[in-house]
């Protein structure tokens, strides 16, 4: 679906995107993670055919991005982090207008509104919508023409836990419908939960690319932390893979003196910081 090969791009003399290569398969959810100014926005603009002056190759849906026609966007849906609606029009009017820009009109507006729980607010002007409602409306706007490829930017940003869950379920449902999804998020929980693979981008380069599970497992072994009482609460840790060698832990288990025991894995954020030396801010 996407194949990027030795991609280099620059706004000035210094390269901004440096020799980047990766591919995204059909039906995959691929996450871009990186701090502000890392090059994610530029990369996304290149993949959306908006920055044609690049070196190397960036092929989306079989089309070299710098040579695309307007039909290129018939199979691409973009969900921006911010609302891109006419505030004075109703939700339904907005969806009708934006769907009229596409030749392909494969999804029913009513069904989409129902899917995000906005069917009863369809006649309300968008200016009356809350941030969460606008996020959901923006999401279904990207689905109007049933695109093969979805670009999602911080799709759960500003949503309460219920709506965030709803949004993640909808993203997974679109994946199950066979869509390829490029996701950018600062929410590591979302990335871990949703993405088949993620790429850590810093300074215009990919530092690591793998599934969240592999990244976590390859870099940091899980550890076990336990507490017991001995003249006050005592705490100790050992690696999960060496748990059988921890004599103290075995003794505490035999004597039934453990007060608590927890296993913990490093988070994707820990791995990101370890690999790139940067935080995701």
């Amino acid at each position: 679906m996407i194949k990027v090969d030795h991609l280099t791009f620059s706004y000035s003399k210094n390269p901004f995107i440096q020799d980047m290569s990766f591919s995204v398969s059909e039906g995959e959810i691929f996450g871009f993670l990186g701090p502000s100014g890392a090059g994610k926005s530029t990369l996304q603009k290149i993949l959306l055919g908006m920055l044609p002056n690049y070196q190397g190759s960036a092929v989306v849906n079989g089309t070299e991005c710098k040579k695309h026609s307007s039909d290129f966007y018939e199979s691409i849906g973009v969900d921006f982090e911010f609302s891109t609606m006419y505030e004075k029009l109703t939700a339904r009017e907005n969806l009708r207008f934006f769907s009229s820009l596409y030749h392909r009109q494969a999804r029913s507006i009513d069904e989409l509104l129902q899917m995000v729980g906005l069917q009863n607010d369809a006649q309300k002007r968008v200016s009356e919508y809350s941030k969460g409602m606008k996020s959901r409306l923006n999401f279904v706007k990207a689905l109007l023409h049933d695109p093969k490829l979805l670009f999602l930017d911080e799709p759960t940003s500003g949503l309460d836990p219920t709506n965030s869950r709803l949004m993640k379920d909808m993203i997974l449902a679109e994946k199950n419908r066979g869509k390829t999804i490029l996701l950018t998020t600062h929410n590591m929980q979302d990335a871990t939960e949703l993405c088949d693979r993620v790429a850590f981008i810093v300074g215009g380069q990919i530092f690591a690319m793998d599934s969240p599970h592999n990244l976590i497992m390859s870099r940091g072994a899980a550890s076990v932390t336990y507490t017991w009482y001995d003249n006050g609460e005592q705490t100790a840790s050992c690696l999960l893979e060496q748990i059988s060698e921890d004599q103290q832990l075995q003794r505490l288990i035999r004597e039934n003196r453990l007060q608590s025991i927890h296993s913990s894995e490093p988070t994707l954020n820990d791995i990101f910081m370890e690999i790139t030396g940067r935080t995701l801010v």
Partner: protein
Amino acid sequence: MRFKTLLLWDMKFQARYGFYLLYGFLTVFYIVLLLSLPLSWKENAAAILIYSDPAAMGLFFMGAIILLEKSQRVTSFFAVSPLRVIEYVCSKVLSLSVIGMLVATVLAVATNCRSLPLLLLGTFLSSVMFTLLGVIIATKITSLNQFILATVPIEIIAFVPAVLHLFKMTPAFLRIYPANVCMDLIAGRDFSLIGLILTMILIAVLFVVAYKCVGKMWQNQGGVKL
């Protein structure tokens, strides 16, 4: 097909934002004003009114329309949709020209103008010219104040010579000046053919500039901010 739909939507937005209502009131006001003027003033007054308002409305309203779209980030979405810049610009130009021509027709009929076809041609050319200028300026600015300031020089070079020309206070060679050609057409007078060709060329140049400015605006605004 997409262009036709886009044009209808643009007109619908303009109706929703009250453009048609506003020009309905203004048309009634202008008719009352023109009918109350002495007969000898009526013809020139109607020409000035039509040239400076319905024909030139694109210059002022395009700023408001594009600023509104920019503020609501709709242009960011256009950048990643199949909509083409040429369709966007043509739709904006034609949708505002429709209102201008409707108002001009009513005023022309109310004041028994000399030639309705010439008046409509003049109104259309002026409207296209002014709307394209409005598009170009609107893509470059970020606030309504900036827009108002940027339109002042255009008002001076587009309105002052045309009004002076209407009262025959300009040298003969300025008959080919596009603003004066449009004024001649609106007033139903003889017009310069060379001037008309120059006006067409000017419109073509403005169209190319507007096309490039909108494309650049979409490119800068569009994409996903990550």
